């Protein structure tokens, strides 16, 4: 796949290197000449010097043929402009943008051309919450512009799901158990699988189904 990455800081340079190793064609964009010298040492990555917020620079970098554009500069305004231009001027099918300040996260949606946003503070909070909480509902990731998400519940002692077969639980429509983690092992969510306390249940659900999932795994 042809991937254009805007922002050659530590995040962009790392992504470029990893994705190039996986065999993708990577174009890395930055307006900083110092970033160019760093980027030149990355094998398999084409560096383009220029302002990624300029549609002509994006065109020259081949955004018109890119499968994915990822805006990962340290500046949220720049990331939004790159996302909007990629969608509006080049019709890029998938635009992934980095949120630096969580206060700006609400803007990273399809109005600005963003298909997927990644907020490090948000992700860290979710992961810490996941690590310390038992018996509560934790959002790990959002898909489809937040309409669906991957959620996690570690079953507390009083959970109504304990001792039940997964297939016997009253799962709502638009929700699916995708895996159980027990003692560090990942188990497929077979209908005959009987849940125990401390099991971590991973559920993929649309947002409107979340309350019903809570009722199934946590109780009211």
């Amino acid at each position, binding site marked *: 796949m042809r991937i254009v990455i805007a922002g050659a800081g530590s995040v962009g340079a790392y992504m470029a290197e990893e994705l190039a190793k996986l065999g993708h064609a990577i174009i890395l964009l930055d307006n900083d000449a110092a970033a160019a010298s760093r980027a030149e040492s990355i094998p398999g990555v084409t560096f383009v010097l220029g302002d990624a917020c300029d*549609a002509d620079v994006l065109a020259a970098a081949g955004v*018109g043929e890119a499968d994915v554009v990822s805006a990962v500069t340290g500046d949220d305004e720049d990331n939004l402009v790159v996302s*909007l*231009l990629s*969608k*509006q*001027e*080049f*019709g*890029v*099918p998938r635009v992934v943008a980095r949120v630096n300040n969580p206060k700006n996260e*609400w*803007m990273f*949606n*399809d*109005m*600005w*051309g963003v298909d997927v946003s990644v907020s490090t503070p948000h992700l860290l909070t979710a992961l810490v919450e996941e690590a310390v909480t038992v018996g509560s509902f934790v959002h790990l990731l959002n898909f489809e512009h937040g309409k669906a998400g991957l959620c996690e519940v570690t079953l507390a002692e009083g959970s109504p799901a304990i001792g039940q077969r997964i297939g016997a639980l009253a799962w709502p429509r638009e929700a699916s158990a995708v895996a159980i983690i027990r003692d560090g092992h990942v188990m497929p969510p077979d209908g005959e699988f009987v849940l125990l306390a401390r099991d971590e249940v991973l559920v993929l659900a649309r947002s409107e189904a979340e309350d019903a999932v809570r009722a199934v795994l946590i109780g009211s």
Partner: protein
Amino acid sequence: MFGRKKKDDVSETEETFPALASVSPRTHVRVRGQVFKLRTRPRQGMPALEVTLVDESGSVTVVWSGRRSIGGVGLGRRIIIEGVPAQGPRGLTFTNPSYELL
């Protein structure tokens, strides 16, 4: 970007337009169609005008962000739009194309 052209080039020199059904994603095109459906679709406080444009062959979706209405763009109105469409959840979608009222 949010460009708007005046209809100064309506010199009735019969311009031909590709059929909406023949438009492919990611190519810069200039197409003509009739406004078939209008709706405002606010996203977290940001207004957006979503228009379905039709011709004899098919339809495309046009989204203008940041606004609830555009003067002259009403149901049944024929307009020309120019931009690069992307494949979206509602089919082929133009985002903030330039437009001309006919």
